[in-house]
């Protein structure tokens, strides 16, 4: 039973354009959501988070949007850079962090 779903396994974007990564969840009790970024042969690293009482959190080029009624969140990266190419995991805070399967973002120059 997947409580956190990332339905797009991959996304390709040109440098300078916007990248939008999506995440859906099923448990309305989740109170915090996080995005992690992972490069090959490395562990995931924390990117940005949002509390369930907010609908937007911005940090530089990265913005996370939360739509609680739709149980949906998204990560926007503007402008996208080749160094952003990585796997992005959505996670929700329950008894432990519950992760989605990840979306592989490829940014071409």
């Amino acid at each position, binding site marked *: 039973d997947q409580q956190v779903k990332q339905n797009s396994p991959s996304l390709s974007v040109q440098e300078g354009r916007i990248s939008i990564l999506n995440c859906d969840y099923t448990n309305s009790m989740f109170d*915090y959501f*996080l995005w*992690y970024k992972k490069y090959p*042969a490395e562990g*995931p690293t924390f990117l940005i988070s949002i509390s369930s009482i907010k609908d937007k959190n911005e940090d530089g080029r990265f913005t996370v949007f939360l739509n609680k009624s739709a149980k949906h969140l998204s990560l926007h990266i503007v402008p996208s850079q080749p160094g952003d190419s990585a796997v992005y995991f959505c996670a929700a805070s329950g008894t*432990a962090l*519950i992760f989605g*399967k*990840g979306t592989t973002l490829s940014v071409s120059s």
Partner: protein
Amino acid sequence: DTAVSQTPKYLVTQMGNDKSIKCEQNLGHDTMYWYKQDSKKFLKIMFSYNNKELIINETVPNRFSPKSPDKAHLNLHINSLELGDSAVYFCASSQDIVRGPAGELFFGEGSRLTVL
């Protein structure tokens, strides 16, 4: 200086063997975790320890036994390895038990286990 380090990074072994993966964190965190990333790419929590005490034990076979000699170390021992144990195992730590704003985990680089 690596914050969360785990060894070995790669491990190839035969079915039925027993193996261990070690993890150490130098962040002074109270909580440590083991996650498993299987072939379907899901990162699934296996165990969580807070100050050497077991907090979370997900549905994991008894062949997997975590051991925390102190709060900076959380080792994973696996008995009678099976083909399905092949995965990447990630150790992680956090300042406190993951709740809300304390949700940031610091991960190790992962240990890729291949069972033949």
